[in-house]
Structures are given as C-alpha cells and as structure tokens.
C-alpha cells in the first residue's frame, strides 16, 4: 500500500464531516446551495415570492446558502430561456406563474414551459376591480350595464398585454356579452401606475392585485366593486365576481418549476422541502402578511393544472385578438 494521498485524505475528511452534519440534522435533509430563478426584476411578484421562500426556508432550516437570481425581460421568457439553457451545478428552482404562461405565448418564445418540470403550486393573488370614490358606478351591475351600452366608453387601466389583469378584463367582457376586441384596455406599467390613473379619474376602472389597492380601499379613496377569486378575502368587505353576478373566477397563481436535468434525488428533496415548508407556521405567516391565498398543489396536481391553464390562457388571448 502506498501512502495516503493528500487529496484522498481531504476527501475522507469532507465525507466524514458531511456524515456528522447529516447525523446532527433534523429528519428533513437540508437542501444546500439552492438557487432560485425569479424571471423578473427586483420588487416584482415573482421576486417577492422568491424572497419569501428564501426567508422561510432559511428560518425553517430546510435549505441553506440560498441565492435568488433576477432576470427580467420579455414577460419572463428571458429568465426562462436562461434557466433552461444555463449550466446548473446546484439544485435550482424557478418561479412560474400566470403571467409567464401568457408571456411565453405572446412573445412566441422558442423556449417554453414544457422544457421545465412542474414541482408545486404555492400561492395565488386575487385581483380587485375598483372605480374612483366619486364615480357614478356603484356596483358591478352598473359597470356591466355601462359596458354593454358603450364598450369603448369604459376605459380599463391594468397591467401588461396578455397578463393576468388583461385576461381577466377580457373574461369579464365576454361574460357580459361584449366583443372582447371592443374592450378599451389601457396598458400601464405596474400596479402603481394603475392606481394613479384610477385615483386621478383618468381611467373609468382600475384592475390590479387586491393587496396593491387595499390601503386605498380601506381609506375610502376608491370603491371596490368585486374581487376575481371565488372566495371572499378575510377583512375585506368586497363581493366576488360570481356574487356580483358576473360568472368569472380567476386567481393569479404562482408556483415552482425545476430543470428537467435535475438529479432524481434532488427533485425529490426539493418537492419534500416545499411540502414541509407550506405546512410551517412561518410560511403561513408570510402568506398572511402579504395577503396571499394558499393554493398549494404538489407536482401530481400542479402538472395537469398547468396544462389546463396553458389552454385557457391561449384561448383568452385569441379571443382578445392578441394571438392569431
């Protein structure tokens, strides 16, 4: 036998150290060096979810050395294509959501969500439909009547074309029996601008996430007509669209995908990590703080749900004349 090489000696030490650490850990193995891709800029919805997951996973000691990477652009497709084509050394996950499904379609992205693997749906947000406090529109029924009488006369302020707000407005129009291509939808860069346009009375109606409008609703500066989810939100006295007589229900869901080349062991570890996370009190607290709805689905249910969303969103975009 030859003498112990220095390299194999240090390898031996590393293995021993890892074994000791594993032994000392809890039942749930810690995922090390997890990378989270948020396919949008800092402060966006995807980014907020990525950073909420980061904090909770760290607090619950389910993962360590977590890094969030923001890649903005193309309705999320730039981040998606970087995620799919990039080399991965560590376990990685990517945030996905309603807007990215639409983004892939509207930008005709060569790389699609089919090149990633669904892991879980985590949460959802409801939109709210608001009018300025001094508007003569008092209820959803008033709005629908006005829309039927003169579709072009009702201007809707909302987010990007093909995004959640836009699809929702299209569906409301359809439910009211109005030609979706006649809808006067005015694109704004984010909820802040939508709010400003609505508060200033420049647009007839504003459509954005409940949490973004909540302070103004509570202060009585805008009137909330309905929310898009099919369940009321605690602490907010606003009917659902269905209760208000419009047969539409839509939730702006977000979830997690992983790279198809991720090792099976890592895939399993990530799924289990998320399944444990959603049960933790700090995750529940994080949801409540941000007004997010718990919509957790494991991969077995999330996969089919994603397929169904792809079909539904494509159909809505075609009806609105965005896709040919």
């Amino acid at each position, binding site marked *: 036998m030859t003498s112990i090489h220095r390299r194999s000696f240090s390898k031996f030490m590393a293995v021993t150290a890892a074994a000791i650490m594993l032994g000392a850990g809890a039942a749930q193995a810690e995922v090390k060096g997890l990378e989270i891709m948020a396919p949008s*800029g*800092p*402060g*966006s919805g995807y*980014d*907020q979810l990525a*950073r909420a997951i*980061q*904090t909770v996973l*760290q607090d619950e000691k389910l993962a360590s050395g977590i890094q*969030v*990477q*923001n*890649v*903005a*652009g*193309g*309705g999320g*497709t*730039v981040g998606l*294509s*970087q995620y799919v084509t990039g080399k991965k050394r560590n376990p990685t996950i990517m945030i996905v959501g309603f807007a990215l499904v639409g983004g892939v379609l*509207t*930008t*005709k*992205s*060569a790389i699609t969500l089919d090149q990633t693997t669904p892991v879980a749906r985590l949460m959802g947000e409801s939109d709210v439909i608001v009018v300025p406090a001094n508007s003569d529109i008092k209820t959803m029924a008033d709005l629908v009547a006005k829309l039927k009488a003169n579709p*072009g*006369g009702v*201007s809707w302020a909302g987010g*990007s*074309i*093909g995004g959640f707000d836009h699809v929702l407005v299209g569906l409301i129009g359809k439910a009211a029996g109005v030609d979706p291509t006649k809808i*006067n*939808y*005015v*694109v*704004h*860069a*984010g*909820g*802040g*601008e939508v*709010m*400003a*346009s609505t*508060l*200033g009375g*420049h*647009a007839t109606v504003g459509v954005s996430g409940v*949490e973004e409008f*909540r*302070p*103004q609703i*509570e*202060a009585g*500066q805008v009137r909330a007509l309905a929310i898009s989810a099919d369940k009321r939100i605690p602490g907010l006295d606003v009917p659902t669209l269905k209760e208000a007589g419009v047969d539409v229900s839509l939730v702006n869901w977000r979830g997690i995908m992983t790279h198809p080349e991720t090792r099976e062991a890592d895939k399993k570890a990530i799924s289990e990590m998320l399944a444990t996370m959603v049960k933790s009190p700090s995750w529940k607290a994080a949801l409540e*703080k*941000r007004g997010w709805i718990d919509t957790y689905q494991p991969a077995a249910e999330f996969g089919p749900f994603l397929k169904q969303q792809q079909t539904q969103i494509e159909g809505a975009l075609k009806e609105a004349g*965005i896709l040919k």
Partner: protein
Amino acid sequence: METLAALGHGFSVALTPYNLLWSAVGVTVGTAIGVLPGIGPALTVALLLPVTYNLEPTSAFIMFAGIYYGAMYGGSTTSILLNTPGESGSIVTALDGHAMAKKGRGAQALATAAIGSFVAGTIATGALTFVAPLMVKLALMFGPAEYFALMVLALTTVTAVLGDSLPRGLASLFIGLALGLVGIDLQTGQARFTLGIAELLDGIDVVVVAVGLFAVGETLFAVSRHRFEKEEMYALKGSKWMSREDWSRSWKPWLRGTLLGFPIGALPAGGSEIPTFLSYLTEKRLSKHPEEFGHGAIEAVAGPEAANNASAAGVLAPLLALGLPTSATAAIMLAAFQQYGIQPGPLLFDSNPTLVWGLIASLYIGNVLLLVLNLPMAGVWVKLLEIPRPWLYAGILIFATMGAYTLNNNLVDLVILWVIGLLGFGMRVLNVPVAPCVVGLILGPLAEQQFRRALTISQGDLSVFVTHPIALSLLVIAALLVLIPVILRSRRAGDPEGTAISH
C-alpha cells in the same frame, strides 16, 4: 404645529445612536453602489431584505432611505470622473461634469454635485414633510395627455445639446428615437425590431446606451488619438475648493433644480431623468455663458444633480402618502413594508407615526451624513485621474463592461454595449454629438406610450391635448422655448445695427 411636533418625535427616534448607525451604514453602502454602474438601489435593498428581517422596521427603513439617497449621490462621481453614468438620473451630469474633470476641475464638479445634492435633498425633504399630501393631489391630476405634454417639453432639451451643426444633432436624435422603438409595443403586445432576440423584447437599456456612447465611445476615441495628441486631462488644476465664482454660479441652479426635481419626482410617471433634462435646458437658457455648456459649465452640473436628488425625495411623497410605488426602489420599499406587515398608504401616518416620522427625520440626517462623507472624498476621488492614461482607459472599459453585465446578468447587454460603443466612436470621429441620442432614447418611448394611452382613453380624439389645461400650457411653453430663440435670431439677423437687442 402638529407636523413639527411629529417631526421632533421623528428626530428623537432617528437620532438614537443605534438608528444613527444604521443610517450611516445605509449612506455608505448607497454611495458605494451609486459609484458602481449596474448595481442600483433597487437590487441592493432587495438583497438586504432577508438580512434585515430581524431588525426593527424603523431601523431597516432608515437604512434603506440612506441607501436610496446615497445612490443618488454616488451616481454623479463616476459620471464626472469616468464619463460612466451609473444611474439614468446622472446621465446629464456626465455632459459637463466630465468636461470639467478633463479641464482639471473635477474636484469642483464633485463639490457642486455633493453640495447641490445636499441642498436639494434637504429642501425636498422639507417639502415632503409639509406639502406631501398637496403634492400628491397635484400629481394625480396628471393623466396621459398631461404626461405627453411634459415629455414634449422635456424633448425641447434637445435644442440645448444639439451642438454646432443642426443636421448632425438631429441625426443623433433620430438614432436615439430609433433605438427607443426596439422592444414590445406595450399597447398591442407586438415585438418591434427585436430581430427574434428575446433579450431585446424589453427594449434597450438606457444606461447601457449611455455608458456605451459616453464611456466606451469616448475612451476608444481618446485611445485612437493618444499617439498623435498631447495629453489634455488633468487631475487637478489650481485649488480643489470651489471659488467664489463657482459658488455664485451654483446656488441658483441648485434651487431651480430642486424646484423642478421634487414635483416631477412626485408624479407617478415622472422619473429622475426628465427633471435633469429640464434643469439643463433652463440653466443654458438663463446662463450668461451659454457657450460654455458642453465644455464644462458648472451650472450644468449643479442644476441636474440637485434635480435628481430632489426627485428622489419626490418619489417618497406618493409612496408614503398613498402607498403608490413610482420607481423600482419604491416598489421594493413597498414590498419591505409588507414584509413587516405594515401597509403604506393613506392610513400609514396614523397607524405607524414612529416609523414614518423616524424615516422622514432620517432623510434629513442622511443628507448631512452624505455631505460629510462625500465632500472630503472629492479630493480623493479626483486622484483617480492621476492614474497613467493607458491604465485609466483600460480601467474605464472594464468598469463599463462589468456594469453593463451586472445590470441584467445578460450577455446580450454586453454585445449591445460594444456595438453602441463603436457607434459612439464613429459619431465622435464624425463630430456628431451623442447627447441628443440619449435624450431621444429616454423620451421617445415615454412620449409614445403616453400619447397612445391618451388616445386609447379618448377613443382617438386628438383634442384631449388642447382641452386639458395643464397639457395645453405645457405644450405652449414647449413651443415658445423652441420658437423664441429662432425669432430672436432672425430679428437680430434682419437688424444688423443691433438695436433690437439693446434693451
């Protein structure tokens, strides 16, 4: 005076040694990231959010505010010394700031920027304390028609940076407007001139273009002339302090810049670039030495730097008073509020007075800290220019390349940077001014977006631009700004004795 009592309470919160420490950490970090191109305050606050999770909300926000203000201070440093604007709000500063640095007046340029930022920051924070609700009410009167008129007004800035040749200046402007067309058309969702490259869907980043034209283009030009021409760049010539003349030429631009910056910053779609453009234009029109503009006029640094800092305070007005985030950093701060379970908005002043007034008081303190930090640093920073030329040039190119990459972690941005850099080099060789190109790139897409939004709401009725009083007034001012110099010139030309101008 309820406000003063509340502010006094705010100071008692912000002046505790613990919070003072966080403010100092914030302004130092902010200055550092302002100096680095590519890393903005938004990303920094996002990165720090998980770290600050266990801090008191008040302390965390005091630090965030320090970062935000600090980045505005730091952005001017690289603009002036290296011609590499780190933030879009400090692009205008590079025009005359770098020219001053080349003449050996870098220290004075940095000083007028720092003091101007302090004056503007303090006055604007005062405005935030006392008139935020009123300002926000005015800001909400701005709809798409009004914004479009404001963009047109800002576009007249181009007349101040066109240079000696009208055709060359306009060519540059149109290059900028054309670059601005690249990307998804927001109103219809169709891609324009993206060549099938997904990274181009969101358009070309203004900072990448500014760094490409200014830093890369200029540096390549300087290198190409290096063998033939004698060096014309000095670290420091004469005193490093601002002279009496510098002071007397700076104080009015500081005040006027503040006056432009705060209200436009408070507009939900105002931003920090437009007030800097308008400030440059105003100073050139009012200056006794308009011929110095573009060659190192101190007013052209003092005004825009004050304007961008005042606009930073303006952004906080709708955020605190309405919960409206009007910039990326404000959006992150909003997310941070939510992380602590605090809902900013109309009720914030009542529900969390300690936080709000502590934050506002920390803005005053942060400004003082920044001045103390930055003024002595000016003398140190200018030593950068003593680095031997070849090293300095290589350094600028590496710095610019690194900054363009960190902006979006995107290789395509590097290609754009260097293509634009070569374009800038070509423009420089052909004596085409680069500033109009940047003005066109920033304002073109904004103006188009607001124009179409206005017409969508009015269902195609063009009269919205003249029936809205604010829009009409702004358009009239814009027309006068363009026409009056032309009329004056033609009258002067038709009156060789010069009696017409002997008022």
